[in-house]
């Protein structure tokens, strides 16, 4: 498993942080650190994945993640194609399995996949030789977002162990929160979850997190606070009275944020709904690292693709 005391990456897929060991997470973070320099060069490209093909299969809307993956792939010199469900044969009734089988028949190396159903990439990964990167599956996981949040936090704080990280918002529908919880608890952070009772999944404490419903108490002494959007598109029942009521109870503002540590950092996986979960001025304050997260996303995704493409070679 190890070479010179360092871990060798063996997985062809990145499905979630739930499956990864602490060492594997750290290897991705360290590799991402090395890649972060590439995007600052005059020529933002390295010849690592020359001749490799990556398909971005986004069966749910996305801009940030898709653009970030596409840039990461291009900066690694891979050939890339992006597909959305609208405009593909899936609207003509083709099943997901057939779509994947066809992509594989085109000699594609890695499929980056977003799907509305939790577990879809896990199922698909068993049927294909292609490497599968989960770019968000239903309400389950969004591993590269979790990794880039953890990477951003580690870059700013120098460590993860012992940090108090608070998530405020719609935890129930948040795959970002789940990936963060798996990763952060493995790396030794203290994770606190906060939100309306109806938007906190039942039994979440079993993952090793603390649930506090009062925002002020929840963020007291926090090193980092991540705000999550209310995912209206995933709600088909009324889980809280109104957006305005949510904004006044759980919306973060400059005054409230003072309850966290003076050097606390504010994160948000996007898309941001200004005036709902976050006050506009706070989103643009020096303590907000929302755009830094976006920048770091490319390096983290380059690291993931680099490591996975090494494991694919092993299989042949």
């Amino acid at each position, binding site marked *: 498993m190890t070479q*010179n005391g*360092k871990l*060798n*990456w*063996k997985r062809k897929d990145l499905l979630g942080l739930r499956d990864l060991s602490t060492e594997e997470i750290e290897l991705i973070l*360290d*590799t991402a*650190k*090395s*890649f972060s*320099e*590439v995007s600052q*060069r*005059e*020529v933002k*490209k*390295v*010849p*690592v994945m*020359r*001749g*490799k093909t990556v398909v971005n299969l986004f069966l749910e809307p996305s801009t940030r993640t898709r653009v970030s993956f596409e840039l990461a792939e291009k900066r690694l010199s891979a050939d890339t194609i992006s597909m959305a469900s609208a405009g593909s044969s899936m609207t003509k009734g083709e099943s997901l399995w057939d779509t994947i089988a066809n992509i594989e028949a085109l000699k594609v190396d890695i499929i980056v996949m977003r799907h509305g159903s939790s577990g879809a990439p896990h199922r698909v990964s068993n049927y294909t030789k292609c490497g599968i990167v989960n770019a968000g599956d239903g309400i389950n996981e969004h591993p590269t977002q979790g990794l880039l949040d953890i990477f951003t936090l580690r870059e700013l704080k120098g460590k993860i162990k012992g940090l108090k990280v608070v998530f405020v918002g719609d935890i129930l529908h948040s795959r970002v929160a789940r990936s963060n919880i798996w990763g952060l608890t493995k790396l030794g952070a203290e994770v606190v979850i906060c939100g309306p009772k109806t938007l906190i999944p039942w039994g979440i404490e079993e993952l090793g997190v603390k649930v506090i419903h009062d925002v002020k108490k929840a963020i007291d002494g926090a090193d980092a606070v991540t705000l999550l959007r209310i995912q209206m598109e995933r709600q088909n029942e009324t889980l809280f009275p109104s957006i305005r009521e949510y904004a006044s109870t759980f919306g973060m503002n400059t005054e409230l944020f003072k309850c966290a540590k003076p050097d606390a950092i504010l994160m948000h996986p996007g898309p941001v709904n200004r005036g709902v979960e976050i006050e506009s001025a706070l989103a643009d304050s020096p303590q907000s690292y929302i755009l830094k997260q976006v920048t770091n996303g490319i390096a983290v995704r380059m*690291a993931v693709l*680099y*490591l996975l*493409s*090494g*494991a*694919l*070679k*092993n299989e042949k």
Partner: protein
Amino acid sequence: MITSEKQVLDEGGIERALARIAHEILERNQGTAHLTLVGIRTRGVFLAERLQTKLSRIEKKEIPVGILDITLYRDDLSEIGPKPELHETNIPFNLKGKIVVLVDDVLFTGRTIRAALDGLIDFGRPKAIQLAVLVDRGYRELPIKADYVGKNVPTAFQDKVIIRLKETDGKDEAVISEGDKS
């Protein structure tokens, strides 16, 4: 298999070789104008830093040093897996119009240098790239030649040339470790 080590450079030898290379660099480039050093990870970086100290002592000027990790430019990257561990490249200055002295410990097949040349060009178009190595052991597989050589060491192809430096190995020396002749 029994391997024996033969020392080809001791601490004083490395020190004198680097001192001579420093003077040669200055003589050839007529001073330190536009001069930068880039060390190839891992030991090339320490050699570049030592050269920097010597150059600034002679010329009383600070010369920038960059660090280059050539992993991403290796020509065997698509053939090997799992992928080699990646380290950070840190060249915090633009190379446009600069004279870059690339520094490495051992020159062998030349493939590392080829990778490094590709990497350097991505940081801007330098005026010139020169190559300094502590040991040249022959057996080039590419048309590459060093401009500054600490010592030419005749070796058999299967021999290993090991450079030990205080920064990583606790002492300074260059040794040949005889390889298996079978």
